[in-house]
């Protein structure tokens, strides 16, 4: 369609200038995501190479538990869904209320995810699964928490956007900011799917 300016959710012509500027901003952010994807890809590859280096320490079977990780996965996926609702709310409703609510829900889900993840790490550490224990655990802790940090950063960004709405209302910058944050949000899902399959399922298989 000729009104599509970039992959993903488009604001559409009735958003005027926000729609115009989105083309460049969103494209730029896609490119940025590509370089971030390389970082995660390399860390996953490194993890795979290192996953046998147990150094006599605990391995995946002793350390990983699938149940909390599965719940985390669901939380993250649902937060992507609710984030989508927030974006649709922004696109079709001039008043930001709907968008704010869905955004808050997304942030809440993501923060529960981070909390559970930290809890996993603490449990692991209790069983001797600390990064200093082996090459395997070092590469685990280089990869998985980096994703958690990304999620936290995305939440902070979401809160900053809410702050901007409080000050300026739903203006053009907020809208393009939401489009970019959306890409990050979904991207982090994809990365998590990778982590879930390679690290957790792969480790327990």
């Amino acid at each position, binding site marked *: 369609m000729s009104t599509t300016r970039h992959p993903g959710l488009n604001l559409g012509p009735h958003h005027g200038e926000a729609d115009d500027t989105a083309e460049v901003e969103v494209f730029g952010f896609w490119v940025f995501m590509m370089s971030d994807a390389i970082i995660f890809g390399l860390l996953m590859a490194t993890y795979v190479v290192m996953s046998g280096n147990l150094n006599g320490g605990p391995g995946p079977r002793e350390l990983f538990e699938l149940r909390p990780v599965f719940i985390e996965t669901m939380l993250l996926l649902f937060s992507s869904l609710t984030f989508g609702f927030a974006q649709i709310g922004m696109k079709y409703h001039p008043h930001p209320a709907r968008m704010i609510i869905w955004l808050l829900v997304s942030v809440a889900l993501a923060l529960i995810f981070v909390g559970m993840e930290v809890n996993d790490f603490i449990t692991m550490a209790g069983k001797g699964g600390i990064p200093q224990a082996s090459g395997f655990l070092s590469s685990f802790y*280089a990869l998985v928490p980096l994703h958690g940090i990304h999620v936290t950063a995305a939440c902070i960004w979401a809160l900053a956007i809410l702050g901007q709405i409080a000050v300026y209302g739903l203006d053009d910058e907020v809208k393009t900011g939401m489009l970019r944050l959306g890409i990050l949000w979904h991207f982090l899902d994809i990365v998590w799917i990778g982590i879930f399959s390679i690290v957790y399922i792969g480790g327990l298989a």
Partner: protein
Amino acid sequence: MSDLWSLVFGRLTLDALPVLEIIHATNGRELASGIVGTTAAGLAVLGALYLVYALTKYHLWGPLWRDWLTSVDHKKIGIMYVVLALVMLARALAEAFVMRTQQALGDGGGGLVSNEHFAQLFSTHGTIMIFFMAMPFLTGLINYVMPLQIGSRDVAFPTMNSVSLGFTAAGAVLLMISLVLQPFSTGGWTGYPPFTEAAFNPGPGPDYWIWAVTLSGIGTTLSGINFVVTIYKFRCDGMKLMDMPLFCWTSLCTSILMIFALPPLTVATGLLALDRYLGFHMFTNDGGGNMMNFANLFWLFGHPEVYILILPAFGVYSEVFSTFSSKTLYGYTALVIATMCIAVLSFTVWVHHFFTMGQSANLNAIFGIATMLIGIPTGVKIYDWMLTMYRGRVRMAVPMVYAVAFLILFTIGGLSGILLANPSLDYVMHNTLFLVAHFHNMLIPGLLFGMLAGYTLWFPKAFGFILDPKWGYRAAYLWIAGFVFAFFPLYGLGILGMPRRMAEYFNGAWFPLTLVALLGAVMIIAAFACLCIQLYVSIKNREALAVPMGDPWDSRTLEWAVPAPAPEWNFPATPEVEGRDAFATLKEGGYDLRAPDDGYHDIEMPRNSALGPVLMVGSTAMAFGLVWYMWWLAALGAMVCFAATVACGFRRNTHRIVKAEDVKAEWEAFCALADTTPRIPRSLEQTTQNMGHASPASEEITS
């Protein structure tokens, strides 16, 4: 050491001062070493103090802040990058000179710097030359030239551009600090663990290296994103991708490489930092670490990196050959395809940097062949450039001298690379000065000459006057001769088996050639001095050398269609072009100085932003704190960066308007000047008669 001291200063003590090497010296060489180090540190401190003094005395802090540091104009950012590159070049050259002197005196264990000091020298020299000389130089040129060439007003994300500069500068500042608060890493520019792990190198050296390189890497990634988006989205009407000047093509490929190749570096240094700070076992000898991961990650960055370095230089040479042969570029399409091939192939050869590190012969063979393949697109380019000169009206202006020297010397360097690409030969040659000769042979005639040619070519566009050609020739010839003397002997030394990174040796057979190489280094220092004199003389004679009409070399691309120096809004109206060599076409039709078709309009320009300089200070503080374990400073720096970034999101009203009247007045004054400025033929282009108004090449050829 008291608790309070270490709370504030971490592990920083007076031992970090280089004077201590003098005090603790036990023999003549250590004494000399201390004096060299102290002098260098003293010069750095004096330079900084003088800068502060001069800025205060002439009340320049305000203008510096308003017109430069917070500016987001791509042209000013470009200029700042190049200034940074030249300053760092001076330091790295001085270090190269000291190293050459040391190796010439090192036979039998003599010399003027200690082994430890020598190791720091090749580490800083390599790190600076790659990350803080070459990268800023090419980023600066791309920044200045590329938006003008595609008829854009700025890059896609002007504030992010200033942030990139800020991160790069922060890394450079860290390296300058390491001169005063020592030591720097002794791990070379590659920083291989396990040598750089805490087990062997607990001191601050590798940490300096890690953070300097990481900061510059982040800055470079952001630059790459910026350039790519600019080229894809900001071309003026009618400029198709296949109509772009070749410099834009090479900028595009370089930027793509920046986006994909810098992340591996960030991962490598980041993981090394985890090892060093938190006791991880990524690359350690014990605990299940695997050093080969570092080698792979580093060279997954490192090899594309050398193409990041060379491609923009290829772009400059393309512009130079075509301009100074008064011909359109021969084989444009082939050059574009070759550039793309090189960019892709650059990701397929990284293993050739460690043929000897234990993988199977078959794997080595594959990577050896892949490496040799790169010779093909590069060879295509060499022929295209030669054919551009063929039957052209070749003028040996200063940039052309560099370009012709490049053609010959680069080919030689390329051939030595083909030799090294053969794993069985590499087993014999690796880690010798043969390799050092090879990569300097690519980097100096390739990258550095290209940058210097570009600097000479575009200087008048940036400042409104050409660089004095007499000193330009002297510099160019000295560079060329100096390079030959300094590095061709190294091929011989390599074949004689002299290892790289060696401060002292006991083999008289190596001595004569190291002496020749020292002579070359002297010539190179003289060449750099000529560049400095050239700049000084040209600034002094700037009135006579002025080229206000903006087209001193009868060039063919859009950046020459505007006055020199270029106005901040670049073009009175975004241009509309057709075909390649847009400006040449305009000139042939006599349309080069037209008023915009549909009148003048208000122009929206981005406002200044303090984000770049604030992030620079914040990240420098953070890195410095991390190096010396001053945790409060690291936290403070991180907080500043974080707060500034969030606050930046709250900025609104980021544009200001340049009024149509003002644009009109400035542009009409320029057009009026054209009426009174004589057009000059090419034979006078390097004289003071050149006012930047070229007579059309077609007329000259027939007359």
